[in-house]
């Protein structure tokens, strides 16, 4: 089955228009008749398989449609770059300031910005957006209102008051909330379900034409940054099959890809010296132990599992080398390498050490019996591991992990489930081991680690946990995480992260195996200005919002 992209599946961009007569499929157009390849042409085609046709809805507050409108038509207050430790670029807000004790946040709204229908954009629109979300809790996908108490506009500033100090929420508030026009949305009766077919935004593009098969965006002539965007037209076809989307990249009819391409060298880069790819890592894909399991409770068993896995082999064989090996500190490298606690890492030693794994198991009282490690009480180290059957690369990775663990006497039996079943079992704690990653990402390692380790995010087995599936609970760790959320000082944040990494290495609450990545392919023959590892000015995937806007603003036709 097709590999589902992280954003593509959570933000399920389900679309179709009623009553269309022809099905949709783009396919390998052999370059002839495709106007995109002409030199100096400013039309960009995106290849991002969403698995369905477009329904031509553009309401950015509804996760079904966000991917197609946020970044193109709508903009955030401040752009926060997760790949550069949260470096900020002011967008609709020209500046911001934390108040005393970090309990208020004030944004100064940029003047001279117009909505695409000519109406001026003001601070009232910002306050309106946030209060609309407060009124319709189904729209509060970032959970901002769990920490906000009020949002008010006055002149050209917006003041946000916090009910509890939560500095990391800046990312969600400033970067992840699209600002919508009050004069349009106040007329909509149900802003949760209304598709908004004619979006009015401040962004660099307007939606010019939408059919179930393709969306066309055109440059916004009234965009507030003069001379931008240089890309004049965007085509966004609806692909329902991974192979077809990949074919269009391979023959050059699409230039910006967000695709998983098997055998990418033969399939794609070999076809032209201009075809390139970059997969920046974002979060860990981890082996999650259920800490209530009698044997997995033992930290030495968990340590042994961690040492027994050959992460390089998992990455090379299961993921074709696309997803790099992770490490036990939980810090995703190279994205957050500057936060690495080197001493914790070196204290952990070699990532892959089957001899050490065996000796740890011996210390825990296990001996080999019939190929499986058994202890004095007769308990065997044989576990089931839940996985998502549709993600064929995860299934392949699990096969490698299985082989690695078998070599030290631990027997794994994979249970391949559907996506919703897998998530449900994780939520309710119905598993021994499981393979999964966090679904949200932020500008520092804190975001992911907080999701995993904060006991506020967990619940007893049988009740629904939020993101802390392994049922880890340690008041000292909680205190550290809470402390992080109260400070804006970079050095204090780093010191806390160092301690948390030590917790990861000592307690082994979860076992990171590989690092999930953003999928990104690009054609340097048609456009320049793409993000690269040396110039990682934004998350590069077309489905990452609002980072896609940053990419679009920097692209120049060749």
């Amino acid at each position, binding site marked *: 089955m097709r590999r589902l992209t992280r954003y593509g599946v959570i933000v399920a961009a389900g679309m179709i228009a009623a009553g269309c007569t022809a099905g949709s499929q783009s396919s390998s157009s052999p370059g002839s008749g495709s106007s995109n390849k002409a030199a100096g042409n400013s039309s960009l085609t995106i290849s991002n398989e969403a698995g369905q046709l477009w329904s031509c809805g553009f309401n950015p507050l509804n996760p079904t449609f966000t991917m197609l409108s946020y970044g193109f038509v709508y903009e955030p207050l401040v752009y926060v770059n997760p790949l550069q430790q949260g470096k900020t670029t002011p967008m609709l807000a020209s500046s911001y300031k934390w108040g005393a004790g970090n309990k208020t946040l004030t944004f100064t709204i940029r003047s001279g910005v117009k909505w695409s229908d000519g109406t001026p954009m003001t601070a009232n629109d910002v306050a309106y957006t946030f209060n609309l979300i407060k009124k319709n809790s189904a729209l509060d996908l970032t959970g901002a209102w769990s920490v906000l108490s009020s949002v008010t506009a006055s002149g050209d500033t917006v003041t946000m008051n916090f009910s509890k100090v939560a500095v990391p929420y800046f990312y969600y508030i400033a970067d992840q909330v699209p600002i919508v026009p009050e004069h349009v949305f106040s007329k909509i009766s149900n802003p949760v379900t209304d598709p908004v077919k004619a979006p009015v935004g401040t962004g660099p593009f307007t939606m010019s034409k939408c059919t179930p098969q393709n969306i066309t965006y055109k440059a916004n002539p009234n965009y507030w940054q003069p001379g931008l965007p240089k890309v004049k037209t965007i085509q966004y076809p609806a692909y329902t099959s991974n192979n077809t989307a*990949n074919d269009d990249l*391979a023959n050059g009819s699409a230039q910006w890809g967000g695709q998983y391409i098997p*055998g990418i060298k033969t*399939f794609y880069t070999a076809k032209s010296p201009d075809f390139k790819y970059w997969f920046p890592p974002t979060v860990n894909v981890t082996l999650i132990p259920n800490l209530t399991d009698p044997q997995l409770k033992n930290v030495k068993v968990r340590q042994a599992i961690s040492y027994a896995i050959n992460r390089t082999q998992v990455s090379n*064989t299961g993921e074709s080398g696309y997803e790099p090996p992770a490490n036990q500190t939980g810090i995703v490298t190279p994205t957050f390498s500057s936060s690495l606690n080197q001493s914790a890492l070196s204290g952990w030693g070699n990532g892959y050490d089957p001899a050490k794994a065996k000796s740890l198991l011996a210390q825990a009282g296990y001996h080999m019996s019939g190929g499986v490690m058994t202890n004095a009480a007769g308990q065997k180290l044989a576990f089931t591991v839940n996985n998502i059957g*549709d993600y*064929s690369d995860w299934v392949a990775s699990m*096969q490698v992990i299985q*082989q690695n663990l078998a070599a030290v006497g631990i027997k794994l039996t994979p249970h*391949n489930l559907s996506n919703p079943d897998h998530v449900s079992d994780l939520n309710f704690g119905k598993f021994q081991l499981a393979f999964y990653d966090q679904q949200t990402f932020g500008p520092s390692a804190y975001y992911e680690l907080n999701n995993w380790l904060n006991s506020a995010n967990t619940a007893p087995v049988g009740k629904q946990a939020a993101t802390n599936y392994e049922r880890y609970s340690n008041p000292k760790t909680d205190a550290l995480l809470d402390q992080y959320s109260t400070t804006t000082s970079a050095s204090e944040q780093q010191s806390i992260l160092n301690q948390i990494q030590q917790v990861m290495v000592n307690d082994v609450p979860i076992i990171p195996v590989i690092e999930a990545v953003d999928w990104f392919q690009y054609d340097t023959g048609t456009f320049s200005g793409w993000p690269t590892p040396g110039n990682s000015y934004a998350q590069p995937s077309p489905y990452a919002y609002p980072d896609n806007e940053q990419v679009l603003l920097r692209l120049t036709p060749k």
Partner: protein
Amino acid sequence: MAMPVSGVPTETPATQAPELGSARALGRIGRAVRLNRKATIGAVLLAIFILIALFPGVIAHDSPTQDAYAPQLGISTAHLLGTNHYGQDLFAQLVYGTRNVLIIAFVVGLATTTIAVLIGVAAAYLGGLADSSLNVVTDVLLVIPLFPLLIVIAAYAHGGTTLVLIAAITLTSWSYTARQLRSQALTLRNRDFLEAARVRGERPLYIILVELIPTMTSLLVAAFLTNALYAVLFASSLQFIGLGDPNTVSWGTTLYWAQNNAALQTGEPLWAIAPGFLIAALGAAFALLNYAFDEIGNPALRPVRKVRKKKGNEERAGK
């Protein structure tokens, strides 16, 4: 999925001579197979596959599942079909996969034929209301498109282990054979030897099992072969589209992995073509054997040999 030839009725039960006693019937079948060239080829092919399934370790020296080698190696003496994307030896995978495929084929073939016998013959023999109601069930299952039904069942079951596949296919594919057997049983119902048994006072169950069924031996063998063929095609197709268990070693699952890794487009065509070829070969073996049985059962279909000894051949081959 393909349309098996003998899956379509060549219903001329009247021309099928009743055979007396199963042992002699089997002996006659054996001889007929030897003499009919198509059947011989089919039988030999089938025998080869059975041998491979029984002794995979003798033929393939590598493990089918260990990602032990460098990926995407070409054909060589060390790796007869090269290695796949994960560094697994493709030849070993296919050899070990034979067992899963043949198990499915034989178990489903047997189970389906058994169910069909029970239902078809019972319907014919019991007649009346039982016959009509069984008939309706059979006919309904006959027209409902089976592959979409299997897809729906497998989808709700979130993909099936081999056992689930076997159960689902068995429960849905017996109807054609049941109909065939019922027709045959109907024509024989009033024959003298059955009447004699009835007069003797034998119970209906005894009559059905001991007197009636052995006379339909060649029909049963043909039915078994057809159902085995269906089973292979259905099961591989379900595994191919991802509704099987991706961790099993089987031809269909190898195809699934090949498709997932765009094997054709990334220069590893053998990965996709080889398992398909094996499915075709096994299918051909069943189909050839079946085709030959059709000829044995229906003399009108036998090849017309334009030689002087024509009449003698026909007499020897199974009268």
